[in-house]
């Protein structure tokens, strides 16, 4: 879940009122957010780098707010405030409009065919006559970062580049070139580097090194030029220094390059809907044209409003409430989904704005209605579903109570196996021996058992593997105690109603197994089939687990008894 940090006072100012921490926490809860932490820059620095470093830092209170992973429209102060204000009925959701430039042609981004090999899509837009302040600027940068971390999947699906349009001139070309042929001065550097040099330069960059793998082994790297050959960016790694935006920037050119064009459109819509608020004509975005290698031209941003029709009966039925069509339309409108009763029966027309890319089905609209209604206001009812309970057979239960061994270890040593050896375990014995090794201070004898699944390859299964339930027991004492382990087998078989006879019942017979001491190992046969082994462990095995006492053990497959 992404976390957004906002300055509390700035947030309250934008919301037009103040809240106590508890009140704001409550508001977040209702709206599906979580006030995760109340902190300050100073506190963060002192926690991460020590008090000495924090002395000069700001005391301004920061709210860290957890935002649901599909609500990209809440990833910055602007979006949060808009969402909460509409939710609290203090603001009508703004309408976002794509406009043509007041004079001249729209900005053009031409994609060449070389990009197909590495990053084939791009979208673009212009924010015209924007006014930045330090806070707005910080938020603008922060939103890009949040989008990169989330929907953009660490820039692998989409990478955003923002540029001061007045420093560059279109039409722009999005192409791909061998790294040696790309050379420019990257953001915040003082000299030019080739792309090859940049890749090694950023190897040690704590931030950028995470993105290098996306293009590193490609023959060509993506790059965007302006009409004068100035490099805007080398996505998804770094922008050029030349076109970087500053507090004074008035006109912003936004480009998003992508491997997933749907996500690129969403990301661009998010960037422009959030920050067009600060344009001289608020909530308008100047269009840009993107020309694909096949000549097809698209206008961005899409800023599409989609209309859906559903019945209030549907919402009432799914949520378990009984509200009028008008009331439900009002509830939805509070979630930025402008809705009205059409007058045809109980039909509601819902308009899904470009900010709500998470609404892809009527059930999403239904959830928003439930949220606006308040989850905790919904009457809690008992389903009438009539069923009869059934359980899977769990032999561990009766064994646990009736066998003389000391415990069931819910053994999760496949965990260690997974991390250290990268295999799922195929036997339970090592886990029990490790448990004994970790409990050597306990009084003897130690008697442990475990009933658990191991994983075996099996071509007949759709995934090529299956679980197999095992029973493993270990007796650890000053004498090997084969008779104890053997007695346990006898008792287990008695409980499973298997008689001690060859053929139809069970028997054991001498076997060779390097895990066990020579002459002290037997194979267990049930109804003629081998199901496992028991015996006195080989001293080499005992030593390898750093144990010092003789030890007898039993491990068998209990699938036949399930």
């Amino acid at each position, binding site marked *: 879940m992404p976390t957004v940090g906002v300055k509390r006072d700035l947030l309250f100012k934008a919301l037009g009122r103040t809240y106590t921490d508890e009140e704001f926490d409550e508001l977040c*809860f*209702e709206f*599906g957010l979580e006030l995760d932490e109340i902190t300050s820059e100073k506190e963060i620095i002192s926690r991460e780098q020590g008090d000495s470093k924090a002395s000069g830092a700001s005391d301004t209170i920061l709210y860290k707010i957890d935002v649901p*992973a*599909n609500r990209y429209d809440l990833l910055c102060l602007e979006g949060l405030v808009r969402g909460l204000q509409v939710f609290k009925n203090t603001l009508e959701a703004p309408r976002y409009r794509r406009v043509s430039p007041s004079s001249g042609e729209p900005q053009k981004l031409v994609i060449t065919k070389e990009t197909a090999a590495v990053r084939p899509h791009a979208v673009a837009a212009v924010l015209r006559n924007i006014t930045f302040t330090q806070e707005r600027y910080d938020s603008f940068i922060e939103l890009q970062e949040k989008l990169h971390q989330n929907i953009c*999947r660490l820039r692998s699906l989409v990478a955003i580049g923002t540029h001061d349009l007045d420093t560059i001139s279109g039409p722009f070309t999005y192409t791909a070139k061998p790294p040696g042929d790309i050379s420019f001065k990257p953001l915040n550097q003082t000299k030019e580097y080739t792309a090859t040099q940049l890749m090694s330069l950023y190897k040690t960059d704590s931030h950028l090194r995470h993105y290098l793998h996306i293009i590193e082994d490609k023959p060509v790297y993506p790059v965007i030029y302006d009409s004068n050959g100035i490099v805007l960016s080398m996505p998804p790694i770094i922008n050029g220094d030349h076109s970087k935006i500053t507090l004074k920037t008035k006109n912003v050119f936004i480009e998003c390059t992508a491997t997933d064009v749907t*996500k690129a459109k969403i990301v661009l819509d998010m960037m422009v809907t959030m920050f067009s608020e600060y344009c001289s004509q608020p909530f308008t975005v100047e269009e840009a044209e993107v020309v694909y290698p096949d000549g097809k031209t698209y206008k961005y941003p899409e800023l599409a409003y989609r209309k859906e029709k559903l019945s209030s009966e549907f919402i009432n*039925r*799914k*949520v*378990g*409430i009984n509200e009028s069509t008008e009331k439900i339309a009002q509830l939805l409108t509070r979630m930025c989904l402008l809705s009205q009763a059409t007058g045809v029966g109980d039909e509601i027309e819902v308009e899904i704005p470009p900010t709500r890319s998470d609404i*892809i*089905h009527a*059930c999403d609209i*239904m*959830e928003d209605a*439930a*949220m606006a209604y308040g*989850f*905790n206001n*919904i009457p*809690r*009812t008992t*389903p009438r579903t*009539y*069923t*009869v*309970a*059934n*359980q*899977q057979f769990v032999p561990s239960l009766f064994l646990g*109570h009736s066998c*003389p061994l*000391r*415990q069931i*270890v*819910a*053994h*999760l*040593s*496949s*965990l260690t196996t*997974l*991390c250290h050896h*990268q295999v*799922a375990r195929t036997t339970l014995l090592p*886990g029990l021996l490790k*448990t004994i090794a*970790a*409990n050597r201070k*306990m009084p003897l004898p130690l008697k*442990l058992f475990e009933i658990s699944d191991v994983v075996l*390859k099996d071509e007949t299964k*759709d*995934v*090529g*593997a*299956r*679980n197999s339930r095992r029973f493993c027991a270990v007796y650890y004492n000053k004498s090997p105690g084969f008779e104890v382990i053997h007695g346990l087998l006898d008792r287990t078989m008695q409980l499973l109603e298997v008689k001690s006879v060859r053929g139809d019942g069970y028997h054991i017979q001498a076997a060779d197994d390097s895990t066990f001491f020579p002459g002290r190992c037997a194979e267990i046969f049930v109804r003629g089939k081998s199901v496992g082994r028991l015996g006195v462990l080989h001293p080499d095995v005992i030593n390898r687990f750093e144990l010092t006492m003789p030890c007898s053990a039993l491990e068998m497959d209990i699938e036949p008894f399930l």
Partner: protein
Amino acid sequence: MADTGVVETLLRLIEKVDDGVDSLEVAASLGVDHQVIVGAVKSLQALGDIISAELRSSKHWELTEEGTEIAEQGSHEARVFSSIPLEGLAQSELMVESIDDQVREKLLLVKKANTAQLEEKEKNELKKRKLLSEVTVKSYWISKGISFSTTITKQETELTPEMVANGSWKEKKFKPYNFEAMGVAPDCGHLHPLMKVRTQFRQIFLEMGFTEMPTNNFIESSFWNFDSLFQPQQHPARDQHDTFFLSDPALAHEFPQDYLERVKKVHSEGGFGSQGYKYDWKIEEAQKNILRTHTTAVSARMLYKLAQQKFTPVKYFSIDRVFRNETLDATHLAEFHQIEGVVADYGLTLGDLMGILHQFFTKLGITKLRFKPAYNPYTEPSMEVFSYHEGLKKWVEVGNSGVFRPEMLLPMGLPEDVSVIAWGLSLERPTMIKYGINNIRELVGHKVNLQMVYDSPICRLES
């Protein structure tokens, strides 16, 4: 039992005196070791209030080994003097006629127990020279007890078959039991706390009419673990960083083909009333085998199976292991148990989900619940379940829940008016809270503390 002779002699001695006797003096007068008298005192004490014995300690001085030697043979100086023959010495004229061996005399005084004639200073001087040492002696001051008697009957420790048979128990006195002592620990097995809590959860589900799902498949294809749940292929949970991928067997090779086509379509193009995710869905991604990240993969298989027959309402549950490639810390392991409940029926509402969660958690002893809107790729609505923690005085998250998305259910072939509600929580967290365990590594894995397992009480979740 100490020597009866000594015991009787001791009792007669006590009978004669008015106040009492000192055990050391008794030992000296009887000419036996002090320990013998101590033994007699102890055994008399065990018989009740025949005598009263008060522990006393006294200090006296004793010669050290070197001191004993000097007392017997004279001080080193004196011995040097006496061993030098007069004629062999050139300085004989300087020699005194005789010496007065004061050290020896002092030590002899101590040896004869006339220590009182020595001054403290002198004793300390000799102590410094390691010739004397001060010893603390413990003795008993023995006097008559409330039920003093010189004749004692031997007390029996236990009732024997003979006593029962011949009735001799009637004449016998029996040694009292020490009810302060602990009993003998029974030889029995101990269930791991996690298993005890699991049993309770199973019980709760069974009481509520839920049927247990077969969860014996740790290895799952991405298809059933993610795709069938409408979790897009670029979802972060499908990353190497979050999920364990298998190298062998790396790929699943068998899927219900038409269902797979419907899943592909709903992801890439939409359908069933959905816009879909509009991306290029790849079979290669769906084929990848993983260690299942949730038991919901099993629920998906069960719901698909349910959809292949004439629909009847079901209530399912499972409690089993799931695997996540997490950073390990005090509360996270790469492996944990997930508890999951699923109900499928016509016309289930969000209110029904909250109602059934209320019933479920009431059985766990949790009655104050509230719900927070949340996001989950395969449920809509999704709700986090919070309960009010009386100790912490705040709301804490206790589980997750939701209504499965139509994009998950309809491609399976379930009827359109069937809703499926579900919830999940981990088994480890309630177990850690129940048994007061702070570090998950002490609960699970081979580092588990067996003493904790032996000592952990039975599990009753409602109390």
